[in-house]
């Protein structure tokens, strides 16, 4: 009521969009970084030997915790800049979010527990596998459920607790599992050698083909969801993106699959799979903008006033480059192939 009298209580579009961009960046960084961590869990069933499994885990042991922090930034940042969206999305995606959190518990503790026991090793390996798969699957479901639209009434979610469940959200769930598997495989190609690496190349083929197939399926299904995506993609100006998009994705896919051949590139498959994910992200952005929760809540609807967003934004502009700096440093410290005989644990 007295709000209008105080300056800085208005919503400033450039800042709200900058925040949306920042969050999208955080989510992308999360997806690719924790993507290859979770991917290792997804690939675990294909590596049966304890020594190989030790090696897989050691490739990410020093960095997984930092990778997962981007997920906390995604949640915390959403609450900070768009609390309305946070307050609607979380109850709407209640089941997949809780499933993801519990899965991440199992996955996360497995990193430490499996080195502390012999008898229970196989159970913590199972926890690592199950946790990784369920977390990836839940994240995909959450994405699909968001894309297919969320029922909103006033400032609250108005649907039931199973609304998220649909063939489309399940499709997205499987797609993310495949995608993370690809990231994990291409990560292993960089970080390992010999048998483990050559198996990773084969797995990269399988998960790569599956990922490309699912990208196609999700892309085809999205415009036919009961939201305005169809118009977005198949009318001008969206059409100018729609036409080249499959071509670019196709080109990247072919190059990536080619680079997966034995004794070829070690870094290229990973970088190309990162760019594949980046393109999917751009596509998602095109579909969703200007909504933060399709089809009812826009970025501006959910934004907090200038005074709230700017406080955090200034800090983020200073801190995120700093974080990227020391994160890069940590990766650099543990760069190169991991020696199977001298793991970190």
């Amino acid at each position, binding site marked *: *009521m*007295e*709000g209008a009298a*105080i300056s800085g209580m208005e919503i400033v579009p450039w800042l709200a969009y900058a925040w949306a961009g920042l969050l999208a960046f955080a989510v992308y960084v999360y997806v690719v970084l924790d993507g290859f961590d979770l991917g290792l869990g997804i690939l675990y069933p294909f590596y049966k030997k304890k020594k190989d499994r030790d090696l897989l885990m050691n490739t990410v042991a*020093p*960095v997984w*915790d*930092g990778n*997962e*922090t981007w997920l*906390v*930034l995604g*949640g*915390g*940042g959403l*609450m*900070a*800049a768009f*609390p309305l969206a*946070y*307050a*609607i999305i*979380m*109850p709407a995606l*209640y089941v997949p*979010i*809780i499933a993801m*959190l*519990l899965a*991440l*518990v*199992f996955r*996360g*503790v497995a*990193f*430490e*527990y499996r080195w502390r026991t012999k008898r*229970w090793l196989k159970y913590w390996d199972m926890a690592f596998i199950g946790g990784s798969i369920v977390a990836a699957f839940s994240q995909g479901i959450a994405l699909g459920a968001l894309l297919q639209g969320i029922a909103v009434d006033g*400032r*609250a*979610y108005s649907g*039931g*607790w199973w609304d998220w469940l649909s063939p489309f959200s399940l499709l997205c769930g499987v797609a993310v599992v495949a995608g993370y598997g690809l990231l994990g495989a291409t990560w292993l190609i960089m970080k390992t050698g010999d048998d483990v690496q050559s198996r990773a190349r084969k797995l990269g083929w399988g998960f790569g083909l599956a990922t490309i197939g699912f990208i196609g399926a999700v892309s085809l299904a999205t415009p036919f969801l009961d939201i305005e995506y169809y118009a977005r993609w198949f009318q001008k100006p969206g059409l100018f993106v729609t036409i080249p998009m499959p071509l670019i994705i196709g080109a990247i896919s072919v190059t990536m699959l080619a680079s997966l051949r034995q004794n070829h590139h070690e870094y290229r498959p990973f970088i190309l799979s990162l760019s594949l994910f980046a393109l999917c992200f751009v596509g998602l952005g095109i579909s969703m903008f200007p909504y933060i929760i399709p089809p009812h809540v826009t970025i501006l609807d959910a934004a*907090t*006033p200038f005074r*709230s967003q700017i*406080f*955090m934004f200034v*800090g*983020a502009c200073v*801190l995120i480059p700093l*974080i990227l700096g*020391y994160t890069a*440093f*940590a990766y650099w*410290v*543990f760069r190169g192939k991991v020696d199977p*005989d001298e*793991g970190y*644990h």
Partner: protein
Amino acid sequence: MLFEGFDAILLARIQFAFTIAFHFIFPAFTIGLSSYLAVLNGRYLMTKDEVYLRLFKFWIKIFAVSFAMGVVSGITMSYQFGTNWSVFSDRAGPVIGPLMAYEVLTAFFLEAGFLGIMLFGRDKVGPKLHMFACLMVAFGTALSATWILSVNSWMHTPQGHIIAENGQFMPVDWMKIIFNPSFPYRLAHTLTAAYLTTAFIVGGVGAWHLLKGRKDNIGVQKMFSMAMWMIAVTAPLQIVLGDLHGINTLEHQPAKVMAMEGHYESHPEGAPLYLFGIPDDETQELKYKVGIPKLSSLILKHDLNAPLDGLDTISDEDQPPVAIVFWSFRIMVGIGFLMLGVGLFGLWARFRKKLFEAKWLHRAMLIMGPSGLIAVLAGWITTEVGRQPYTIYGLMRTSESASPLEAPAVGASLLAFIVVYFFVFGAGVFYILRLMNHAPVLGEKGIGKKDGPIRTSGITPAQQVEEQTDMDEVKK
């Protein structure tokens, strides 16, 4: 269906209480332990005394497991606000959201970024950078506590905001929000609690090995001695800080103090300190009470005859549930004084040069080992339940804060959390206890080597020699 007919808000409250209580015990331990590790590592670099490196390597394995449990239970918390308390998140988000985001950006990333180097990087980055990483992790844990306690304190003593037409709390003055009246006291009291908690765990482990007859192990001696010094300093300090925090609470949240004290009725001429009683909210009286006249006024007002209002001045629907607050407060204070006693006992034993022989001291320390965790939880319950029936004190009620969820959803997830947490964290505690049970030996293996003694069935002499050479390499 299961949980049909339950109160969704009550289930959401139980879920939050359960998940945060589980989460809280890990940071309460790791905040102190990361500082302890930084001190050990610093002492080792300064003195080159093997015993510090040995202890560093002993405790860092325990730290790694505890930290992982703190991280995974903490991620749950950052989403729990939205899943179960969406109305609160929407309305309070503009104020508390940025503070929590600052916590992530300044503290979580710092801890996580340097944790890998701290755990695995000693040989890769050299001693100076490794020391820096240890300091960053210790600093990050304390900084994280600082932000989240600022948020929590604002919920107790909100200021610096306005309430907009759409019901959202809007920030006006960030300095006033961050440095709200209860924040400095809560921060000092909670951080000290974390250090005290860790000191008791470290001392308890030392005591265990002393009782097992390992008093010639200099690692055991050193950890026990360091812990007893820490307790001797922080236990009395904590009582002073607690008193200050209580006086601050009296000023800003009198109803909470009334519940803590069991003061249903007002005392115009000096209020008694009740040592025992059974609070009954229905009849608004403390049954079977045993009290010391005027002592409560002396503690809270520093005046025997100072008048103190009771809950009869607060309408029933604005009162916190007295019994929980009353008892959890007594548990916390009781443990606090026992800690002081053990600290004095330790000083006396040290003065008599019997620190490593005083069996009763060791037994007391062993029993008191986990007491810090219990006190921290009891204190947390006191302050949080004492804030009821509000989430944001005086401004937003708990009953208006929850998500629009059906009881079965909240109940099912609560059940899942309980099962998973007891199983997963139960296993973690078991592994931690097993790590603690093995005495810190000469050439203790850290986390960086593959086949540490903890993972093989025993320590062979050959390995010991190998470990010794490893250690010499590190010394270079």
